């Protein structure tokens, strides 16, 4: 197994764990954190592909990672703000209790 594959596997595992958390936790904030983890997994992929890729002298991978970190930061800020607003609306962050999104 080459180092690249190792990195990819690691990121896949990270992604899976994050996904599992996002799918199973009841606390909305932790769900958000799971999503953050998934984003980080993607970042690991970028860096790994950049490092083991054909021309590491180019900065493409780095750029991808930096931008996605920035976007992730924005996403976290807005997400948490939304969660706070939702909490103020219905005094809970329990996703099972927040089920008004119903047809």
């Amino acid at each position: 197994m080459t180092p690249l594959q190792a990195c990819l596997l690691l990121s896949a595992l990270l992604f899976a764990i994050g996904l599992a958390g996002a799918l199973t936790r009841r606390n909305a904030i932790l769900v958000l954190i799971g999503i953050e983890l998934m984003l980080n997994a993607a970042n690991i992929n970028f860096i790994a592909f950049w490092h083991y890729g054909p021309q590491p002298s180019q900065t493409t991978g780095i750029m991808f990672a930096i931008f996605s970190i920035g976007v992730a930061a924005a996403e976290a800020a807005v997400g948490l703000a939304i969660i706070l607003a939702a909490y103020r609306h219905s005094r809970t962050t329990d996703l099972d209790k927040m089920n008004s999104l119903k047809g």
Partner: protein
Amino acid sequence: MTWIVRNLWLIPALPMLAAGISALLPQRSRRPAAGLAISSMGISFLLALCAFANALHTPGHQFFNFNWLQFGDQSLQLGWLLDPLTAVMLVMVTFVGLLIFIYSTGYMEHDENFTRFFCFLGLFAGGMLGVVIANSLLLLFMCWEIVGLTSYLLIGFWYQTPSAAAAAKKAFITTRIGDLGFLIGMVWLYAQTHTLLFYNNGGGSLEQMGIVSIVGQTAIPGISVLAAIGILIFCGAAGKSGQVPLHVWLPDAMEGPTPVSALIHAATMVAAGVFLMARVYPLINYRVIEDYIGIGTPPAVYTPLQVVTWVGAITALFGATVAVAQWDIKRILAYSTVSQLGYMMLGLGVGGPAVGMFHLITHAFFKALLFLGAGSVIHGCSGEQDIRRMGGLRKYMPITFATYGIGMLALSGFPLVVSGFWSKDAILHAAHNWSVSQAPFYMATLGALLTAFYMTRQVCYVFFGSLRLPSHGPVSHDEPHSEDTRHHGAGHPHESPAVMTAPLAILAFFAITLGFLGTPAWPWFQSFLEGRAIEPTTHEPGLAAVMVTSSIIALLGIALGWLLYGRRPVTTCDAIDVLDRAQPQTFRFLHNAYYIDALYAATFIRLTRWLAHLSNFFDRFIFNGVVQLVSFGVLALAWLDSFFDNYIVNFGFDTGWRSISLSGRALAALQNGRAQAYLRYIGLALVALVIFLLWGVAR
């Protein structure tokens, strides 16, 4: 290009700016408004002097053009121009305007719309100066319209009186008729030459390229395109400067305040028409065209000049005759203005722009002087305008009398002293030498005689004889601001304040001296305007004869007037006029200005009314009927349609909706409202997708 040329636009811009500001001022802030207008006008005057100096030492056309609109490959250019013509007009307009502004602060001081008045005045001055400096027919036309608008506003300044409002409308519509011709001519010119600039380094419409591109084509047999355009533009000029048959608005325009009459309807605006013709002179003058294209010109080319000449001559005579039989002091002056404008057109036609412009300038001064004098008289007589009710005023208002007398002499062309003599003499001389016909000369001479006569008559009526002013007399109905002015002693007249008499004095000074700029012995003005040295024409044959004739004519007229009116002064208000006693019908005829208004009322206006009725009938019964019919049909269809809807379509739809909502409820069960459940679905879908893709890859 010197500074002044580049910034010539400042001259009109300043008064306009002042107008704009004072439009925003509250109604009660009179002093700032007047101060703004006067100061801006003063600055413009100084600038105009700079421009004049510049034009003095650099003759020829200096212009500044810029792109205004860019459509497709061709662009519409505007610009301004500085040449002797512009320079002279600039100085004249700004100077007379300045004086009249100062004068009106005194004249209007009791009016509650003081601020509005000065706002309009400033706007007018701006527009007029714009007309003067324009280097593009389009720009000229815009300013031209601004001027027309302001004249409308100012004539109807006392819009409370219906007569004033009517007069304003009349003026606006009449000039509009002329402007229509102007507009058509302009468009045609643009279509032909693809430029509206006058001068553009040979590319302008008045220069070789423009002219050459037009000349030779004929619009309708006998008249070339050039001539047609010239005549059309002349329509605009005629409308503005009250040439027959579009003169009807000018006498009625006297409804406006007297300074307005002086400024707009004597000195500047009405002169705009003459100025326009002088500006586009190359278009209508065959000599210029000969210069441009060496061929002998077809006679059709200079039809416009002939038209101008004849119309001018007719107008001159007409105005003079009508003025003889008027009672209203301002109407007399108005008709004399009409006839003088006729003189200018005549001079322009027969003797080129220099002659016409010279008379224009001198006339501007002494006519403004006369109007302001009349205004001062009216002011002093607390709003009285009927000369039969005045008389013997020379005792009460000496300054006014003196200045007015000078103006009267100037207008009636008193030999050798006053400016009017020289300018009119130049016109007569040119008319005398005219190759086409002698008739204009004789008409002009007769006109001159009448001019002298009616001026004398007026002066005799107003200033001599005994005071016939009724104590707090029946104030003439058409002076609404008399309510304001009455309070200072109706009954016994009084001299006007210095702020009104000072401009009179200044104008009087110029009314005398200005003439010496253009004597045949020293034709400085002509040479300056033509841009080439003109040798003194004293030794020319016929000159002396003409000069003698005109002086004799003038003296004769004055003598006649004195004989009829001065010798046995009029004593009572209702004394019948001498001429009236002699020739009642003629007098009536003349008094009503040949019944031209009645004629128009009987023909054009009635026709228009009738057309309006006809179209109204059409609209009401025929078109409306059709519309009603259609609407009924539509209603019927709609009813049918609704029936169909309710009983056939809806049924089918209802069943459809029921089934759909059922299925929707079934699906809604899947949607339990928990975000994570949805996330799970997404995840499963992702898995399925990836498996599918990889399978595709694997195989």
